[in-house]
C-alpha cells in the first residue's frame, strides 16, 4: 500500500468504502517501520500487538455497519512523554526506563477513543529538554531528508515518524518550539495550540505554565481533525480552558485571504536568519499577497529577550517539577543507599541525562535565596512586556507570519557541546510560548541542499480556526507538504 499520500480523512473514507481494512493499513506501516526505522531511529517502542488489536476493533465496527470515529484507521506515533497505559513510557530518559504507566494521558485517550491506532512511542529529548533529540538517553533520531542531520527537537521522533511515512500523524508537545521546529526541519505541518487549549494531564511536566500538547501531520487539514479531537476542558487539568472547541475541520475555508492583514515582524527577519529561509518565507508571504492579503511591517521589540526569559522561567519550573521525582514509586534507582538523602542524590545523579541535570541546576540557582528577584521575578516582568507587545500588534493585524527557525537541520553532533548555541536556536519560537499564543508551522520549500524550510502563523488566543484556515488555503495552492523524502 502506498502510505506516502495517506491522510486522516482519506483513510477514514477508504475504510468506509471498503477499499482497504484498518489491519491492512496498520500492517503496511509496521512493515515500513521494520524495514526503515533502523536508519531513522524514530521509535523507542513499536507496539504491533496494541495496534493490530485496535485495528481489528475498527474493522469489526465497519463490518457491523457501525459509525467509526473521526480518526478511524489513522496511526499515531506518540512522543514518549505521553503516558500510555500498559505501554512503556520513558520520556526519552533512562530515569523512566521500563516504566509501565497505570493510566493514560487525556489527549492520548481522546485520539484512541476516535479510533486512531497507536503504532508506537517515539524518541524525544529527555523530558522534552532540547532542540535536536540528541539529548535522548537512548539514541539520536535522524532526519529522513538527510540521515546525517538532526530532525529537530524535542519532538524529533514525532516529526521524523510522519516525514518517513511511519505513521499518519503524531502527538508532540511544545514548550518553546518543540513541535514547530522539528515539523519545519522535517518538512511537515505542526500545531502549537493556545496554552490551556489541550489538557496536560498524564504528560510528564516540563514547565507547567508553558507546556502545550499538540500534533504533527502531513497536512493542516489533518492537524485540524486531530486538534478538534484533542482540545477541550479536562477536570484533571485545572489550567485547561473551558472555551468551546470549534469543529476546526469544517472551518478550513472560512477565513478570507482577501483583505487579511498579515504582520511581518522585523525582528524575525534579522541578520540571524539564513537568507535562503528568508527567501522561502517571503515567497509564501507573497503568495498570500497575490490572493488578496495585505503584508504589514510590524515590530515586536523585545523578541531578543524571549530567550533570556525562557531560560530563566522554564528551568525554574523544571527544577520544581523534577524535584518531585524520588525514584521510589517508579523508575530505576540505586540499591543499598545508606540513607534517604543519598538515595535521592545517587538515583537522580546516576540516571538523569546531562541536560536534565543542567536545567535543574540552572533553575535551582535562579530560584535560590538571594537570586529570586534578580532572575525569576525580573523574567516574569519581561514576560508581561512580551505578552503586551503581541496584544498591541494584534490591534493592527489579523495574524503574524515568521520563519520557524533561523537555520535548516544541522549535522548531528555539531552543537552538542555548546548548550548556549543550542538554546539560541529557539529564538523564533520561544516568545510565542512566553505569551501562550497559538502558532501553526507550515512547510514552504527547501534550501539548496534539499532541506525543508517552514514558516509559522501566530494568532491571538484561541484563534486556532483562523490559523488552520490560512494554512490550509496555502496548502491548496502549493505541494511542499506533500513532498516526502526518498528513504
Amino acid at each position, binding site marked *: 500500500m502506498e502510505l506516502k499520500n495517506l491522510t486522516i480523512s482519506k483513510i477514514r473514507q477508504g475504510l468506509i468504502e471498503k477499499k482497504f481494512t484498518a489491519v491492512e493499513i496498520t500492517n503496511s506501516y509496521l512493515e515500513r517501520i521494520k524495514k526503515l526505522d533502523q536508519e531513522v531511529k524514530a521509535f523507542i517502542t513499536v507496539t504491533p500487538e496494541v495496534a493490530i488489536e485496535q485495528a481489528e476493533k475498527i474493522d469489526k465496527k465497519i463490518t457491523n455497519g457501525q459509525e467509526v470515529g473521526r480518526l478511524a484507521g489513522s496511526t499515531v506515533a506518540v512522543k514518549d512523554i505521553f503516558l500510555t497505559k500498559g505501554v512503556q513510557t520513558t520520556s526519552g530518559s533512562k530515569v523512566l526506563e521500563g516504566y*509501565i*504507566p*497505570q*493510566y493514560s494521558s487525556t489527549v492520548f485517550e481522546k485520539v484512541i477513543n476516535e479510533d486512531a491506532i497507536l503504532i508506537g512511542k517515539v524518541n524525544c529529548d529527555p523530558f522534552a529538554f532540547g532542540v535536536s533529540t540528541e539529548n535522548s538517553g537512548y539514541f539520536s533520531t535522524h532526519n529522513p531528508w538527510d540521515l546525517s542531520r538532526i530532525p529537530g527537537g524535542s519532538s524529533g521522533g514525532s516529526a521524523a515518524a510522519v516525514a518517513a511515512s511511519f505513521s499518519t500523524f503524531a502527538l508532540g508537545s511544545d514548550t518553546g518550539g518543540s513541535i514547530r521546529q522539528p515539523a519545519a526541519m522535517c518538512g511537515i505541518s505542526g500545531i502549537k495550540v*493556545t*496554552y*490551556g487549549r489541550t489538557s496536560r494531564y498524564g504528560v510528564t511536566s516540563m514547565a507547567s*505554565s508553558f507546556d502545550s500538547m499538540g500534533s504533527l501531520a502531513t497536512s493542516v487539514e489533518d492537524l485540524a481533525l486531530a486538534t478538534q479531537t484533542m482540545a477541550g476542558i479536562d*477536570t484533571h487539568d485545572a*489550567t485547561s*480552558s473551558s472555551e468551546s472547541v470549534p469543529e476546526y475541520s469544517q472551518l478550513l475555508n472560512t477565513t478570507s485571504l482577501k483583505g487579511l492583514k498579515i504582520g511581518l515582524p522585523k525582528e524575525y527577519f534579522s541578520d540571524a536568519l539564513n537568507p535562503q529561509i528568508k527567501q522561502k518565507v517571503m515567497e509564501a508571504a507573497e503568495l498570500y499577497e497575490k490572493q488578496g492579503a495585505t503584508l504589514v511591517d510590524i515590530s515586536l521589540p523585545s523578541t*531578543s*529577550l524571549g*530567550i*533570556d*526569559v525562557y*531560560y*530563566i522561567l522554564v528551568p525554574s519550573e523544571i*527544577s520544581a517539577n523534577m*524535584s518531585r521525582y524520588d525514584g*521510589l*514509586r*517508579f523508575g*530505576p*534507582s540505586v540499591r543499598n*543507599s545508606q*540513607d*534517604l538523602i*543519598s*538515595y*535521592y*542524590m545517587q538515583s*537522580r*545523579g*546516576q540516571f*538523569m541525562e*546531562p541536560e536534565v*541535570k*543542567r536545567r*535543574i*541546576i*540552572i533553575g*535551582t*540557582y535562579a530560584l*535560590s535565596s538571594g*537570586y529570586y528577584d534578580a*532572575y525569576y521575578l*525580573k*523574567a516574569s*516582568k*519581561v*514576560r*508581561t*512586556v512580551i*505578552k503586551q507587545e503581541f496584544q498591541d500588534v494584534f490591534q493592527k493585524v489579523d495574524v503574524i507570519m515568521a520563519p520557524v527557525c533561523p537555520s535548516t537541520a544541522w549535522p548531528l553532533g555539531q552543537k552538542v557541546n*555548546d*548548550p*548556549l548555541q543550542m538554546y539560541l536556536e529557539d529564538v523564533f519560537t520561544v516568545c510565542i510560548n512566553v*505569551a*501562550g499564543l497559538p502558532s501553526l508551522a507550515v512547510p514552504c520549500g527547501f534550501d539548496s541542499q534539499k532541506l525543508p524550510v517552514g514558516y509559522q502563523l501566530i494568532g491571538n488566543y484561541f484563534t486556532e480556526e483562523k490559523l488552520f484556515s490560512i494554512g490550509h488555503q496555502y496548502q491548496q495552492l502549493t505541494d511542499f507538504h506533500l513532498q516526502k523524502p526518498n528513504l
Partner: protein
Amino acid sequence: MSSTTITDDVISKVAKLARVSLTPEEVHTFTSQLSPVLEHIDSLNSLNTDKVEPTFQVTNLKNIFRTDEVHDSLSQKDALSTAHKSDQGYVVMPKTIDK
C-alpha cells in the same frame, strides 16, 4: 544580577540543594557551560521593568474550584505496581532518621 560568578563551589552547593549528585567532572563542565548562559541572561537588565507587574499565568485564569467529592482512582495494587519494593500496601524506602 550582573557580575554573576559561577564557580565549582556554587555548582556543588546548588546540586546539593537540588538533590542531584554530580561527579567532579560534571561540576567542572557545568561551571564552564553555565557562565555564558547566565551572562547572556543578564541582557534582561537592558529593559526597565520598574512599573511592570509580573506574569505567572498567561490566559488570565483565576482560581478553579471543584466540589470535594470522592471519585474512583488507582487501586492500591495498581499504584504499587511500579514501585521496586513494597510491603503490606506501602512503598519501602531507605531509612530517614538515625536512632
